[in-house]
């Protein structure tokens, strides 16, 4: 049986046997401090005991199976901030990547809890022009295929190929179809971690670099927000399919996601009139609370803060995100409207156009 019964070596004394008999208790942290100190001193000079100590310590570690209940998601930021206060990081995670880090970590925690049958449960993915049923592993392929355009921009390997998002997605799904869900999860997760690591090590002007989505481009910082947004929404789809609770992102992150939507909306606004200079003020209440001025006729930088809006829309932050994700009916969503009602309605109707299959 293991190293326990092998030849004792040069230290065959009673002392050695006495200390060796403590190894189990030591590995379980069940000795007194004095005993532990004596044993640890002995380990320095006794390879046989050292090897057994390593094995037993490792075995003891397996007694603690991971708890099925994950710690509160808010604990993550708290613990990390506590660490960073004690030792300044040399390479910070850029602020623009934080929602992505948080959302991928939350989805990964959900995936950790999925049982074998949960991985068979089809989730319903919606966008403004349709729905699709996919099992969780295929949802992960979908996320990884689009995350891949970001990876590619950062000089990392692309898990699939091509420019068109739908083709990339289909190709990756086909390539991964025979693999275990855990392997697909590992692939998705490794890529999310690699892009964050790479962005954190890169010079700050990287945030401006354009990421090519095929049909459009986004600066890298916005692409990270886009990926966080989609990760959250599809995590909700998976959670809904398996009947797990799933909460919206933190307020600060919701605010960043809404900011992204506000920046892109003028680009997809179908009733824009170049030169008309109309501005919709978006007032977000609840989680992600804040105000944005959306220049619906002129895609580009937001107008000065004192601009008089043509219309004002007041809406709940999480509801607005769901609207942008194609999960709410723009004609039924509760919103407070003042000013040009038709324009305000047109903005709400345009929001789901931000969703993609």
């Amino acid at each position, binding site marked *: 049986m293991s190293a326990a019964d092998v030849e004792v070596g040069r230290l065959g004394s009673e002392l050695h046997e006495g200390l060796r008999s403590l190894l189990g208790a030591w590995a*379980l942290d069940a000795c007194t401090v004095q005993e532990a100190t004596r044993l640890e001193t002995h380990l320095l000079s006794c390879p046989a005991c050292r090897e057994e100590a390593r094995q037993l310590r*490792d075995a003891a570690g397996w*007694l603690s199976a991971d708890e099925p209940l994950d710690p509160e998601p808010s604990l993550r930021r*708290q*613990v990390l901030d506590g*660490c960073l206060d*004690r030792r300044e990081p040399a390479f910070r995670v850029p602020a623009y990547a934080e929602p992505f880090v948080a959302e991928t970590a939350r989805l990964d925690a959900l995936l950790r809890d999925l049982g074998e049958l949960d991985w068979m449960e089809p989730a319903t993915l919606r966008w403004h022009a349709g729905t699709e049923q996919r099992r969780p592993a295929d949802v992960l392929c979908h996320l990884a295929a689009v995350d891949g355009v970001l990876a590619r921009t950062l000089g990392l390997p692309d898990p699939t190929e091509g420019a068109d998002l739908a083709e990339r997605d289909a190709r990756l799904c086909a390539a991964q179809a025979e693999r275990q869900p855990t392997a697909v999860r590992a692939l998705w997760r490794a890529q999310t971690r690699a892009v964050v690591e790479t962005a954190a090590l890169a010079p700050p002007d990287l945030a401006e670099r354009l990421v090519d989505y095929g049909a459009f481009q986004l600066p890298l910082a916005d692409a990270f927000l886009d990926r966080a947004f989609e990760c959250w929404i599809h995590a909700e789809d998976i959670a809904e399919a398996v009947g797990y609770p799933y909460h919206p992102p933190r307020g600060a992150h919701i605010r960043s996601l809404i900011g992204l939507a506000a920046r892109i909306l003028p680009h997809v606004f179908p009733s824009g009139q170049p030169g008309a200079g109309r501005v919709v003020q978006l007032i977000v209440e609840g989680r992600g609370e804040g105000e944005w001025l959306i220049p619906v006729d002129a895609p580009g930088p937001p107008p000065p803060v004192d601009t008089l809006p043509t219309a004002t829309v007041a809406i709940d932050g999480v509801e607005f995100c769901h609207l942008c994700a194609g999960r709410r009916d723009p004609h039924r969503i509760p919103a407070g409207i003042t000013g040009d009602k038709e324009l305000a309605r047109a903005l709400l109707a345009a929001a789901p156009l931000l969703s993609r299959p």
Partner: protein
Amino acid sequence: MPVSSPTPIRWDRQIQRRLARGEESALGELYDQFAPLVHGLANRVLGDQAAAEEITQDVFAHVWQHPESFDPAQGSMRSWIGTLTHRRAVERLRREAAGADAGLGCADGAPLEPPSVEEEVLAAATAARVQYIVSSLPQALRETLLLTYFGGRTYRQAAKELGIAPDTAKHRMRLGLQLLATALSTEPAL
């Protein structure tokens, strides 16, 4: 699942190097990988959410401040972090018990919590394989291991509670862990 697929040694070394370089992203990955282990273990030993969160903070701060003290030759990152956690949790438990004893004048070695540890542990274990191996250990070894590890007992306290000699308790702990180590090393990894 982290339990059935131990993180490879290469990952351990890489993350250690990145922590040493001061990469916040490495700290985040480490947290995501091990927070359920750390928080879960501390919570099981201490039975107190707030205390478990403090231990979690303390363990990750230690790793972040002293990544160089991880020695891959001594075992995996998971095992190291598990050890840091367990040690802190039982130290705290014993400190609190000592405080309570001093205040209430309890006898030394009195039970620290209801004796349902074993059942709870087995019920809550998510890893079927580890659960299987542990549950197939002889009863005497199993109860000694679980009472000690999750109950935070010293071997002398455990001996008293189980009505056995301290030497017998030590022997059971060592033998139980040896059996577990052998079973874990011969079972195929997922």
